[in-house]
């Protein structure tokens, strides 16, 4: 493999720097192993997490506009393709929809540029890590890089909401019957469990007002995945991960919800790191409420005797 790693600007977002550090680290490690390098843009602020659904709320676009602007400067200074890679579903949704809004209505961009006293030219294309793997690297190429046998894992992809919706603006995959995570998991050699709850909502920010509701919704998802025979869930969103994981952890003591026992929730990059034969030490499995290492042990031990594909 050549040492020249493709330089891709990267926007982490607040959660990835704190509660979901394992997600970021595993993604960065995997990127290096695959052949590109994610460079964090120099200064960035929180994107606002939720895109303002009311059309006249321009203030909600100010933060993402600032980020896109920083990314644009980053790319122009280095004369590279104007891409911006993201990991968190919320950031991806907000940034991509902001970009879409600017393309749809250039007036909005004009107003914001005047307000921010800066000039964003609208060149940045927002890309999700998964999208980059699918469109630039290619899942078939990814499959060739796999070093560990993952076939003992029965995992259910869980998409959540904001990665896919609204389809018109996100244009990543079908919002009702998505396949991108399925294809990804197949490529790295897992057994994929297709279950109907894959696009249901985990409760999202309702955790602030109504944790009971989140508990109920998360439970339904876990229960469904369990009924379809999954050992673990795989997600791309730090909030989905924490809602599912924490509610499962919280629930263990109560009799109110029964049925699911210790189903771990992975970030897709954590599994990718395992499959690529990387050291998973820094990927913070210990921060999960439900310990994921036990179901990984088969794959990790097999890591000592990796698949003999390349010989």
């Amino acid at each position, binding site marked *: 493999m050549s040492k020249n790693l493709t330089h891709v600007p990267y926007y982490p*977002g*607040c*959660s990835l720097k*704190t*509660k*979901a550090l394992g997600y970021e680290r595993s993604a960065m490690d995997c990127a290096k192993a695959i052949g590109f390098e994610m460079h964090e843009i120099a200064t960035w602020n*929180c994107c*606002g*997490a*939720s895109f*303002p*659904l*009311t*059309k*006249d*709320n321009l203030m*909600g676009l100010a933060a993402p506009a600032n980020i896109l602007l920083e990314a644009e400067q980053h790319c122009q200074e280095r004369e590279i393709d104007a891409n911006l890679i993201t990991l*968190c579903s*919320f*950031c991806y949704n907000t940034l991509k929809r902001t970009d879409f809004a600017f393309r749809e209505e250039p007036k909005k961009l004009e107003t914001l540029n005047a307000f921010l006293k800066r000039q964003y030219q609208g060149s940045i294309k927002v890309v999700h890590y998964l999208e980059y793997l699918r469109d630039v690297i290619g899942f078939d190429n990814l499959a060739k890089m796999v070093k560990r046998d993952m076939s003992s894992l029965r995992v259910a992809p869980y998409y959540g*909401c*904001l990665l896919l*919706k*609204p*389809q018109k603006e996100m244009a990543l995959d079908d*919002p*009702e019957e998505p396949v991108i995570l399925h294809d990804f998991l197949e490529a790295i050699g897992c057994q994929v469990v297709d279950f109907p709850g894959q696009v*249901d*909502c985990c*409760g*999202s*920010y*309702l*955790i*602030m*007002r*109504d944790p009971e*509701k989140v508990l109920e*919704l998360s439970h339904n998802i876990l229960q469904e995945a369990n009924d379809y025979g999954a050992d673990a869930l795989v997600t791309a969103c*730090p*909030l989905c991960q*924490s809602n599912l994981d*924490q509610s499962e952890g919280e629930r263990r003591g109560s009799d109110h919800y029964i049925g699911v026992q210790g189903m771990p929730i992975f970030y897709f990059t954590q599994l990718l790191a395992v499959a690529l034969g990387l050291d998973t030490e820094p990927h913070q499995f210990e921060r999960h409420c439900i310990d994921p290492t036990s179901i990984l042990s088969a794959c990790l031990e097999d890591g000592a005797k990796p698949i003999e594909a390349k010989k």
Partner: protein
Amino acid sequence: MQILMKSNQSALKELELATGEIVSDCYQCGKCTAGCPASMDPSPSVLIHYLKLGLFEKAVNSESIWSCMGCLTCSERCPKNVSPAAIVEGLKRLHLNRMKPRVILHALGQEFLANSTQQAVVSGFRKFV
């Protein structure tokens, strides 16, 4: 409780301008309600029905608007390209512009703030405060 000091008609106009949605486009098929994971009650289609009937006060005071979590299932499935999620958010905004926040920042508790994911706090503050 009287939130708006306006007629229902002008309040509806304000909502439509703010959200960019046209309430009268809805033909009450109920797909939004069927898909709503928050099981809102009154449901999104009923809220829109209130608006169409001129019962703006009833819609803006519904407790159910606060259980929407913006998953966009309703907007995605609407055959008439209406976004119930946007209308609900518009109602929340109009409510918050005139009434007290639904979440008191400093009453959230240290444990919640220390343990919750940043994006949940940020989104929650955007929607409930």
